[in-house]
């Protein structure tokens, strides 16, 4: 990366290169125009990050963090959330992106509706799910009671079900986005390739493995990494659905910070973020390599 940085100055626009006397004016204006973002960056990125690291500087914070039984559970939950959530979501998105390539009027209408979860804000819809699943008044258990005269499952009050449902809400919310991205990827594959495969008598599955997947693999991997980072920061799906409960058993790293803030232990909240960094930074690095062109 340093190599590219070194060349940027030299490889300036041809315009400026040809008119060296203008260089100063252009560079000055460039600096002025860049300044607002730099100010934002210094005041609202550098300072908070520095502050965060400063808060998390005591080794004792990490000792307390590890001693807190909730932290270990949170790490496990986060891993489950990531591994299950992302793979299920991306697999469905890949499948549905194939479905949406079919040209039918009703599928086009469906694709318009399909975007809704992601076009509307999370709070009302997640709270709607939350109420639907309330064991006493929620429509789901009332229906179960009416049909079977049994009390239904304890949904969000059961730690396992609660986490599963939070993953479900996460998928519900972000599936349309990834489906669209992968759909765009599919549509950019040349139709000729498929025609050639048809001529060779390839089955649907063979077309997928020999044409679709090879062209999509890079995109799919990038999407998975990006999704990993974003999912790690998914606060709403857990916080608004279960609030981390019951008994703080469904927290993930994104919601743990708020818990410690409430407990007046802000150093732990930053320590938890710092603990996630060895995992996040390599992903960020890979993504930057892939995307900063």
């Amino acid at each position, binding site marked *: 990366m340093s190599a590219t940085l070194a060349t940027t100055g030299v490889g300036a626009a041809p315009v400026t290169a040809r008119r060296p006397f203008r260089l100063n004016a252009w560079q000055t204006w460039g600096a002025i125009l860049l300044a607002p973002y730099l100010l934002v960056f210094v005041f609202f990125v550098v300072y908070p990050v520095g502050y965060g690291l400063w808060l998390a500087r005591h080794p004792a914070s990490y000792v307390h963090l590890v001693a807190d039984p909730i932290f270990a559970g949170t790490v496990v939950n986060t891993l489950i959330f990531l591994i299950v959530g992302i793979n299920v979501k991306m697999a469905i998105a890949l499948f549905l992106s194939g479905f949406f390539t079919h040209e039918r009027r009703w599928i086009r209408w469906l694709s318009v509706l399909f975007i809704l979860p992601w076009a509307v804000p999370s709070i009302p819809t997640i709270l709607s799910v939350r109420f639907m699943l309330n064991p006493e008044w929620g429509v789901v258990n009332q229906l179960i009671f009416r049909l079977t005269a049994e009390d239904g499952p304890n949904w969000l009050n059961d730690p396992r079900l609660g986490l599963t449902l939070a993953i479900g809400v996460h998928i519900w919310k972000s599936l349309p986005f990834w489906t669209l991205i992968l759909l765009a990827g599919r549509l950019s594959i040349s139709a000729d390739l498929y025609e050639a495969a048809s001529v060779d008598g390839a089955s649907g599955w063979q077309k997928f493995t020999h044409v679709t997947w090879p062209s999509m693999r890079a995109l799919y991997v990038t999407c998975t990494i990006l999704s990993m980072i974003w999912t790690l920061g998914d606060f709403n799906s857990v916080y608004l659905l279960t609030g981390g409960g019951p008994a703080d058993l469904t927290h993930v790293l994104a919601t743990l910070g708020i818990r410690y803030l409430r407990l*007046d232990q802000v150093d732990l909240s930053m320590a938890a973020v710092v603990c996630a960094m060895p995992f996040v930074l390599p992903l960020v690095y890979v993504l930057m390599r892939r995307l900063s062109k």
Partner: protein
Amino acid sequence: MRRGIVRTLSLGLLVTTSLPALAQDKLTVWFSKGFYRSEDESLWAAIKKFEDKTGIKVELSQYAIQDMIPKTVAALDSGAPPDIGYADTYNNQAMGKWAFEGKLEDLTDVLQPIMSRFAPQTVEHTLLYNDQTKKKAYYGFPMKRQTLHTEIWGDMLDKAGFKQSDIPTNWAEYWSFWCDKVQPAYRKASGSRVYGIGAPMGVESTDSFQSFYAFMDAYDVKLVDNDGKLTVDDPKVRDGLVKALKDYTEPYVKGCVPPSATTWKDPDNNVAFHNRTTVMTHNFTISIAAKWYEDSVNPSSTPEQREAAKKAYEETIITAPFPNRPDGKPMTYRADVKPGVVFAGAKNKAAAKEFVKFMMEEENLRPYIEGALGRWFPVTKDSIESPFWQADKHRKAVYNQFKSGTEPFDYVKNYKFTQLNNENVFAKAMNRVVSEKIPVEKAADEMLARIKQVAAQ
């Protein structure tokens, strides 16, 4: 050093915010939002009166209860706390720690002249230890208090075929009555899915540990002695704790408590009761009954709605004390005393103390307390005897409970309990039992271990 940077930054960032330019004649006051309009209106009236009398401008900000502690902590960290703060959660989740760390202003000189006006077990709760001065002092001005009651739907009890006089006073029979008799009978009579007992168990609720203390008291479990020293290694404490935890969780395991109780926040036991999902609930204040009173005078409801609410408040809903303890002695109650504080970092301490003095005057404090419709009980002898507390059966029940004497919670004696309350080790233990199916003994041991761990930090 850091403060210096911060100051430079905020100067560079003169985007908005009225910087407290002339702090001398201005007082910054933070109060948590009241539950009832009448409560907030009385506060505003008192503040207006204070401004007129002293010429000091009061800048009042009211925040949601759950926001008060994080906001205050952030303000303390950045070195700009308000002059005066009050939140319903300060006392049991923060104050002891702040006093210990020297973040609160000693109010002894303000309270000393009015000591004789306080009822027993009120102002004592604000006598806290400061580790900087190595002394105890009065670090808050007590305004109100609350304790544990039970609320019962009388008409649901009727429908189940029982009368109020059928409710047992014996500990074991009492709980079995709601679970094994009332619930099945009511379900049979109505065909609806109703639960006998509303027992708060959410980690994010204060109701859960406040209720659980009553169960611990029933078995004489004392986690600390009077000097705040942990007594959790006493085998009697463990035995009692196991019994208390068992009694608290058993109705849930037997299906007599709404399944969602494990994630209830403070309002949710109220909500379940209002919706008639529970026949009986324990609740720390009479806010449940008071809600129906407020509905009965709410001008935006229809006359029929007001009439129905009036009936619920005056007839159907019953406020009652707990049953006797398992050893047959009458139940003892813990009370929370809710004080406001002046911060050590306040810019305008003189005016703040002036405000405390003013607010503690009978004629200013009483309307604010009574504006809460019975939710808060007064701390001064005179206000306790106000006709307000004799006006109806709910308030009379509260009055009687307080008159028979209350005890402080453990956080008053050992500030580490503010963190334990905050983490809610009590509800966590309940959840271990009912959600994760851990044996009660193991959950109790884990709880004691965590208490020791936090106390040692």
